């Protein structure tokens, strides 16, 4: 089953709620991890590891540095997931 933007966004929301304790309602594609969601560089590592496990996708470190917004992460996972 191919990953869709909707399912990945829902999964990322769950992870960010767990890691940063942010209200799921404010998590959206255009939100920035650091500025909007209290996910600092350390917590971003937690988000990435959890996302890799959840979606069975490898996210290289050089890609992580480019993921400023939730949408960046969702789109990468959809494009590279199985």
């Amino acid at each position: 089953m191919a990953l869709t933007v909707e399912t990945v966004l829902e999964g990322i929301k769950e992870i960010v709620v767990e890691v940063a304790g942010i209200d799921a309602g404010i998590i959206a594609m255009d939100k920035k991890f650091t500025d909007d969601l209290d996910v600092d560089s350390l917590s971003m590592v937690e988000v990435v590891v959890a996302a890799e496990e959840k979606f069975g996708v490898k996210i290289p470190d050089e890609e992580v540095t480019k993921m400023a917004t939730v949408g960046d992460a969702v789109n990468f996972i959809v494009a590279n997931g199985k």
Partner: protein
Amino acid sequence: MTRRRVVVTGLGATTPLGGDVSSTWEALLAGKSGVRKLEDEWAQSASVTFAARVAVEPSEVMERVEMRRLDRSEQFAMIASREAWKDAGSPEIDKERLGVVIASGIGGVITMLDQYDVLKEKGARFVSPHTVPMLMPNGPAANVGLELQARAGVHTPVSACASGAEAAGYALEMIRNNRADIVVTGGVEAAIHELPMSGFASMKALSTRNDDPAKASRPYDKDRDGFVLGEGGGVLVFEELEHAKARGAKIYAEVMGQGLTSDGYHIAAPDPDGQGVTRAVKLALADANIPLSEIVHLNAHATSTPAGDVAEANALANALGSDISHVAVSATKSMTGHLLGGAGAIESIFCVLAMYHHKAPPTINIENLDEAVTVDVVRDVPRDLPKGSIACLNDSFGFGGHNVVLVFRSYEG
């Protein structure tokens, strides 16, 4: 130039006796024990099956997400410092004049061991990125410093079970030396885990009174057989006297002096002659520069080990001479257990409250006083201390041969 004077204007704690200062003090005066059988699975087959866990779990007062980024020792530091800062009236201060000195004896040992389990079971990729900030011994001080935006300096003296007292001494000097006007100081420990407990047990340092945990910590009793591990922490707000007066702060007591020495004797055993302790007391009294007749109370280190309690009592008697006769000695570890790096901090709080309320807390569990103990021990019930200007000592010693003695005095305005 006259020396800058330092007073205590705020207190905070989370201990085996209570989740804050007032509940802890109340239980202390009531002679309650905070020592209990451990519920943890690992403890059921351990050689020591009890300890003194905090009375109020951090999860009852802290958000889940904050907790997962903090080691348990850091959680204790945040809880105690928030109470202390609020108690001090959340003072407005230039952050470059605000310091933090909070100690820990062992640091984030539980985080280190938990993450080692993650490494072995799941692999390196799954080791938390928060591991290092959580296990570093300066983590409690650093997190408190960050929350308060302290910029005069954030420090962490490490001297095993003397750490909390050494932190208070460092804080005193920071204000005396005009590096800061307020310093938030204390000590914390969270080491109730099978590895550190096994290590202490291997040293034969822990009481093995598994059939009666509440009676296990019994300083000065003939049948004492070791210390009881406790957890938690205490934080005090130290403030320059004129700064405190100018903002109308409540003043609990004055911090008069400190004495620091080292034994050069053994890595863990106390020097039976107690010369290092005697010298530390004398240095502290010289630093405090008050009449010996004012010293009416002492919160002893007295951990309930066969060797330590008597060596300490003798050293105190040597240092104070005939003036030991008017000193009411309390061994509060009989109720709290031994908080290691947190001990000197919570016992400093007990000293400050003893000066503020003119009341010495009791020592419990002495069924047969060891005949070798010649000091006047406050037993079972609290004792009223004289009215007027009074002073007390808090002594703490740590593995490594560290000796720290602090002097507090009632503040009479």
